[in-house]
């Protein structure tokens, strides 16, 4: 696999789990280092069969898949000495402790660099570890809120909406992996590693560049608003995106100008079914329409006609016909429908991994890309607590069984 040659020490909590998971997917040897007894995040649900047990957290599984796992107490001097041995064997460290915590243990970048000049130390924190907000306490919700992504989502006059499921942590983990890849490439050229600091909030702010709240403020002193299921189109005008149909919602947007052929095709279909309300007479060619020249009530009037058509069909009916007629329209999937998605199945997307201790196999989302030569994949389920202690401490680092037993007694491991 692509990153076979690299070892990653993963000291993260939920703020940074995803980074190591992605590197593992590409073949890196990712060692999740947990405190003796296991990561605190193992106590977060949902759990397998709703059994609250640190070995059964489904959210922990999905974020630590592909990694090996050991336990080690960095709070003890013996733990730190063992850790420094590990650092010598590693290429990358990823951590998400509060700013300066590792420095306070004498395990900051300077110390790691002395032990291993090639090491790439990546620190994932709410605000990047420096600056006036460096010690601001922030969880995923605050990272999303302060990023600018939340203000523009939700219904007007009501509380803005964040994305569920710790999406800021996900973005930060992914973007940390981007930084690590850049650092690995640079190391190929210079031989030296470096220190990276990732801001979880900024990882979300990166996403706003598409809707450009900052550019809109700078250029036009305009504050982008939220409009429920509608949004201000980048070419002007307020367009609705979600429409109810017989069995749920579909997502479709009035296409005009360069994309107007899609709406021509949709109206032709509606006309065939006698549901076009003479729209074909009102607008003969949607390619000739520009949203910046149409008044909002006109747009709403058109959208109402399309809405009356959509509500008479099921998601599947709309999607299949849209595909035939090259109309961009998608169903809003339930979880069940995601798992049954034909496109994903036909590409062998899902990964089945055995969990012998649960006596079962679980189905996980697959790799983030496919390759013609060395396809990324996830080869092992998330580790049990201390599952690879013997493998790594005895076989790979060469400590004796007696030493390991002693460290386990005094809870260093």
């Amino acid at each position, binding site marked *: 696999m692509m990153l076979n040659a690299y070892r990653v020490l993963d000291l993260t909590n939920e703020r940074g789990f995803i980074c190591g998971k992605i590197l593992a997917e590409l073949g890196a040897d990712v060692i999740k280092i947990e405190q003796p007894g296991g990561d605190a995040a193992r106590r977060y649900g*949902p759990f397998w069969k709703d059994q609250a047990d640190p070995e059964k957290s489904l*959210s922990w599984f999905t974020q630590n898949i592909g990694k090996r796992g050991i336990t080690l107490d960095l709070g003890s001097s013996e733990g730190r000495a063992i850790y420094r041995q590990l650092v010598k064997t590693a290429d990358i460290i990823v951590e998400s402790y509060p700013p300066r915590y590792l420095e306070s243990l004498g395990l900051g970048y300077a110390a790691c660099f002395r032990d291993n000049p090639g090491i790439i130390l990546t620190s994932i924190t709410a605000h990047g570890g420096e600056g006036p907000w460096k010690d601001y306490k922030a969880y995923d919700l605050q990272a999303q809120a302060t990023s600018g*992504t*939340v203000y523009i989502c939700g219904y007007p006059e009501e509380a803005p909406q964040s994305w569920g499921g710790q999406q800021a942590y996900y973005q930060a983990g992914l973007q940390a992996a981007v930084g690590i*890849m850049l650092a690995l490439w640079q190391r190929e050229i210079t031989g030296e590693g470096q220190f990276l600091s990732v801001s979880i909030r900024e990882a979300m702010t990166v996403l706003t560049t598409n809707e450009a709240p900052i550019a809109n*403020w700078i250029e036009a002193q305009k504050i*982008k608003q939220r409009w429920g299921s509608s949004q201000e189109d980048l070419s002007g005008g307020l367009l609705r995106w979600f429409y109810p149909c017989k069995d749920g919602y579909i997502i479709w947007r009035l296409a005009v100008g360069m994309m107007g052929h899609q709406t021509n095709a949709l109206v032709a279909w509606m006309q065939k079914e006698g549901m076009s309300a003479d729209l074909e007479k009102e607008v003969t060619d949607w390619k000739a329409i520009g949203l910046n020249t149409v008044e909002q009530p006109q747009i709403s009037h058109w959208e109402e006609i399309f809405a009356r058509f959509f509500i008479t069909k099921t998601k599947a009916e709309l999607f299949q016909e849209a595909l035939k007629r090259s109309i961009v329209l998608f169903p809003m999937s339930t979880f069940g429908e995601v798992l049954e998605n034909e496109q994903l199945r036909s590409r062998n997307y899902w990964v089945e991994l055995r969990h012998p201790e649960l006596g079962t196999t679980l189905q996980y989302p697959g790799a983030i890309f496919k390759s013609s030569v060395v396809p990324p994949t996830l080869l092992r389920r998330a580790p049990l607590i201390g599952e690879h202690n013997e493998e790594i401490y005895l076989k790979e680092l060469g400590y004796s069984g007696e030493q390991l037993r002693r460290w386990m007694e005094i809870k260093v491991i």
Partner: protein
Amino acid sequence: MERKAALKGLRIVDFSWQVMGPVCTKYLADFGAEVIKIESSRAFDAARGNLPYREGIPGVDRSCHYAWLNTGKRSITLNLKTPQGIEVVKKLISLSDVVVENFTPGTMEKLGLSYDTLKQINPGLIMVRLSGVGQDGPYRLMPALGNFIGAWAGLHNVFGLKGREPIISYLPHSDYLGGHAGVIAILASLLYRRKTGQGQCLDISMLEVTVPLIAPFLLDYLVNQRDTGPLDNKSEAACPHGIYRCAGQDRWCAISIFSDEEWSNFVKALGNPGWAEEPGLQSLAGRKAQEEALDREVEAWTQKQSVEEVVRVLQAHGVAAGIVANGKDLWEDPQLQSRNFVRLVEGHRELNQHYSAAASFQMSKTQPELKPACCFGQDNEYVFTQILGMSDVEFIQLLEAGVIL
């Protein structure tokens, strides 16, 4: 400390347009690679028409949205519908490391630029193909935007309010996920090529990079048959956990209380009000049981003061609180300023100067250098004469033949 451009010396041929591809190649350009964007006056990057335009005046080089996403790239204009255009682009690819494209699957094949063809010309080539749903499969030809894919991937199940129509996100997450996956894929492939000499073709589907965002909910559905609904800013592991109205017009604060220690800090920050002393509220389970009433009390407090004051007081007591920032707040944000996140880029040929953003990560030995976004066709002469080695006569002949247009 030494600050070298990490990707100096790499050349990228960039057919990508709109958001996903340009997000990917912006990293490459900002970190020092030579990114050559291929457009033509028949098929230019549609993002050149995205608002806002500088001073509200439309123009192919006046979109500040486009400028934001295309810093440091070169732009050439080439008619790929002519045999000579294809010949020229093949020559360029033979001199490059990476090709990036995000057309509808099949388009590169129709142009005669399939991976199989290109690897004959350049065996070490890394070709990154970004698309809505992947290069094969029954739905491969469905054109897609990030928001559509987010809905198809199931993201909206956990977003918004129960019983209300779905909320559209302003953020096509999927475009950004695909763009970032693209950078990771390219660099991993470059490292692999360095060791083995082998190039490869990479197939990135927005749908496939989006589904992992809801992995825990999917497993919960599979294992426990639980169909989690819209979360309305709530969390099972925290209470209070939400977005609360503050004084002023449309001002909001995000507050999260996970531990009992945070709860007691919160109560202190509020000045130990009587309602908060109730024994039932001293555990997470107790607070969750009375969440609605509790939220009303919290909001009664936040509404009396500015969001800035709420954040100041709560942070001083060790409670996670953050402003729900709009564009103006972000622009004035002292933390973003201290990290030099939004940067003024000088030297744009039409706009003179424009803004863009650096990465969410800072690196000790390299940093992104944001150069002006490419104006349409601004590098024709340089690329055709300096990189491809054409004479001025050949260059002018291509112009006259409509190959460069």
